[in-house]
């Protein structure tokens, strides 16, 4: 006969303040097979855990139910507690009477009755638990990092220095991400490229890091320690072994395309490196815009006008490095851990019709201003109006464009814009002492180290006028823009004639962040930000073991936080890869060979190809489970007609017992 112990937690007043814990304990004492029931103030504390271990020994308990917070919080903790008392860690069931009960119901009677029901369900289930024994599997000591911005770069360097192999995959021709587009960084006004490029070079030169630029992750299979990833290497049309990065080809190319790196304010050729300090410092050919490639495509159908057979780059290349025979290639690599650092893009402000809807060339985004201020940018570092190239004297900044705004579906704050606008106000004054800046703000958020002092400097020392209010309309009058806004602190409308307007556009995840998340089976929220395992305590892990997330793909943050994040993810990866073997999850499917008829309906539905054929001694062909591949989803159990498969941890008998206890109890 089983002897089940039930431990009900108060969790301070989180549970005890709503649920009548003593009543639940008393009810538990009368539940079938319960030999002992008790309560704890904080079960997860050392005291609480000790009391459980003691009770298991003293009361000779062989199964445990803990009624507390969500199993997603502390199931692993309590498994260790139970194991320390000599019991198999899987002879435990957690009943969620906090997140699913005391925190969402205010009526004490209802909450207590529900808690008693939930405990009785857990008691019925755990009575049918069996001891389970995880297996050891090997792991691949290599890490994959998806996204080569500052976060990915930092993670790569940290994992590589710990002695593990890293593959860094980046979809653009160069690593560097958004930080490479910035001129200076707040609050130190360090030159962004100066602090970033040494790290980029380190990545390229580190013996443990393989850099795959112009590449994308296509498919991910496997599980922690044993991932198999298909990576698409897009054809660069340049042989990087022969290419020396001399630059003759891109200087000679006659084609001009709006430069993505310069936000469309400048242009680039068809064979190009995105910026001067690109790593690798070797070009790729943009096939869609290359004249000769267009000619080759034209030759297939001969429809329309004939494009020129250019090939100038091939003519001038001193090492014959152009290789038009290259094709896109898919390689498959094995990894033990994956870190997602896909970064952000800025909000498209053209949805704001009141700010010109993208029609006015002198209404620009803050990232466009960064490109103008950059010495390596389209105007050589001079801030010039896009419309006529003159120097602006009256610059209006509008904060919270695409942030804190429900109407455009972005209610969140993008965290960095108050700071970078303060930086812009300071920098513009440095460029031109006659410039007058106006900043329309809702709040000034300057929460980091030295941030408040920096923001005050912009307000007090540059003559920038900070106006608390929104802008209702911008319209073009002659050469300049009329900005109609409000100063709510004096309660008056204000009208400013500006020659340049800069919109502080919000941060959102990069394109296709949701597709990457789906490939990895990790969660993402409404705005496509990836979801971490716990927002407070587990900022770089996901619910899926072995897959980590870091940087702005998780939420808006600035460079110091991204570097910290990347390092944190690296530490988790190194901890994972420093083990010699991994313990598998024993909650897998199991087939009863006596009942299996070999119909393989289970094989049809298994998403992980974990079902194999087996021939029994009496020559029947039946199904068998590959426990390394099985992820414990349970699809096969429902598909099996003779009822030959069951899922450990969630057996059909356990689920049925929960239902029956509920309806009959």
């Amino acid at each position: 006969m089983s002897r089940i112990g039930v431990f009900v937690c108060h969790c301070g007043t989180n549970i005890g303040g709503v649920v009548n814990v003593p009543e639940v304990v008393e009810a538990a004492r009368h539940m079938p097979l319960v030999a002992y029931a008790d309560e704890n103030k904080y079960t997860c504390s050392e005291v609480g855990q000790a009391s459980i271990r003691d009770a298991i020994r003293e009361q000779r308990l062989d199964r445990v139910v803990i009624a507390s917070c969500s199993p997603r919080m502390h199931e692993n903790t309590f498994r260790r507690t139970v194991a320390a008392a000599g019991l198999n860690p899987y002879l435990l069931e957690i009943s969620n009477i906090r997140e699913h009960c005391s925190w969402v119901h205010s009526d004490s009677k209802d909450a207590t009755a529900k808690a008693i029901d939930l405990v009785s369900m857990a008691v019925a289930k755990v009575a049918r638990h069996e001891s389970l024994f995880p297996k050891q599997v090997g792991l691949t000591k290599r890490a994959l990092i998806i996204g080569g911005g500052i976060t990915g770069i930092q993670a790569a360097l940290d994992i590589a220095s710990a002695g593990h192999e890293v593959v860094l995959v980046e979809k653009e021709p160069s690593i560097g991400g958004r930080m490479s587009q910035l001129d200076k960084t707040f609050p130190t006004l360090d030159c962004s490229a100066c602090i970033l490029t040494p790290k980029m070079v380190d990545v390229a030169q580190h013996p443990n890091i393989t850099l795959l630029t112009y590449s994308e992750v296509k498919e991910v299979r496997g599980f922690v320690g044993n991932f198999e990833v298909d990576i698409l290497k897009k054809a660069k049309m340049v042989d990087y072994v022969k290419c020396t990065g001399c630059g003759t080809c891109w200087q000679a190319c006659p084609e001009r395309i709006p430069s993505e790196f310069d936000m469309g304010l400048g242009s680039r050729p068809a064979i190009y490196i995105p910026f001067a300090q690109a790593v690798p410092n070797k070009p790729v050919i943009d096939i869609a815009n290359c004249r000769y490639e267009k000619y080759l495509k034209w030759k297939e159908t001969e429809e329309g006008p004939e494009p020129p057979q250019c090939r100038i780059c091939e003519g001038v290349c001193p090492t014959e490095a152009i290789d038009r025979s290259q094709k896109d290639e898919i390689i498959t690599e094995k990894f033990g851990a994956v870190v997602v650092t896909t970064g952000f893009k800025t909000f498209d402000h053209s949805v704001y019709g009141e700010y010109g809807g993208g029609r006015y060339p002198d209404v620009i985004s803050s990232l466009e201003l960064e490109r103008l201020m950059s010495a390596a940018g389209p105007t050589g570092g001079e801030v010039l109006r896009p419309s006529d190239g003159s120097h602006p004297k009256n610059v209006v900044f509008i904060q919270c464009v695409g942030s804190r705004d429900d109407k455009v579906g972005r209610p969140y704050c993008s965290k960095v814009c108050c700071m970078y606008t303060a930086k812009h106000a300071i920098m513009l004054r440095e460029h031109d002492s006659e410039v007058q800046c106006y900043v329309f703000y809702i709040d000034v958020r300057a929460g980091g180290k030295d941030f408040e002092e920096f923001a005050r400097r912009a307000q007090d020392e540059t003559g920038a006028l900070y106006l608390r209010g929104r802008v209702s309309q911008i319209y073009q009058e002659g050469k300049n823009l009329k900005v109609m806004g409000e100063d709510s602190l004096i309660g008056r409308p204000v009208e400013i004639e500006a020659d340049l307007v800069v919109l502080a556009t919000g941060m959102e995840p990069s394109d296709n962040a949701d597709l990457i998340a789906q490939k990895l089976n990790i969660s993402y929220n409404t705005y496509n930000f990836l979801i971490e395992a716990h927002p407070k305590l587990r900022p770089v892990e996901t619910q899926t073991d072995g897959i980590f997330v870091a940087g702005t793909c998780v939420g808006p943050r600035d460079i110091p936080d991204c570097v910290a994040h990347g390092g944190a993810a690296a530490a988790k990866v190194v901890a994972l890869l420093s083990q010699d073997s991994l313990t598998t999850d024993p909650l897998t499917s199991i087939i009863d060979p006596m009942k299996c008829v070999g119909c393989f309906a289970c094989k049809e539905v298994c998403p992980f190809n974990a079902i194999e054929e087996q021939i029994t001694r009496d020559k029947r062909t039946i199904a068998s489970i590959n426990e390394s591949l099985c992820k414990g989803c349970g699809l096969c159990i429902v598909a099996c007609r003779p009822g030959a498969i069951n899922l450990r941890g969630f057996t059909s008998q356990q689920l049925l017992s929960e239902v029956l206890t509920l309806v009959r109890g």
Partner: protein
Amino acid sequence: MSADNGPLIIGFLCNWCSYAGADMAGTSRIAYPANIRIIRVPCSGRVDPLLIVKCFEEGADAVLVAGCHPGDCHYNEGNYYSRRRFALLRALLDFMGIEKERFQVKWVSASEGKRFAKIITEFTEDMTKLGARKAS
């Protein structure tokens, strides 16, 4: 049954999305009626339609199965299977004389705490109006 003898709703929630979404409703302290009893499963695809029938047979007033949004299943395809299985089941329930409204399949992601609470609130209200299930 709950203290006020309202409808008994059994909810099967998948561990990765909907159970986490229900947890999120808890951490956000969003209140909803106490009639639902949640059973955790690894995937909505684990829930056997026969188990749902058993729930009704034994006297439950309503059953909810919640899983990840199509495309987001932690196990890639589990929710596609559950979607199809439960579409068939609904037709059968109808035939068995159980009102279709008593069985709901919803997709709730891990960040949708508010939505989860809204779903439970509306479901409980509808089932209260519909009344207890008559034994058949």
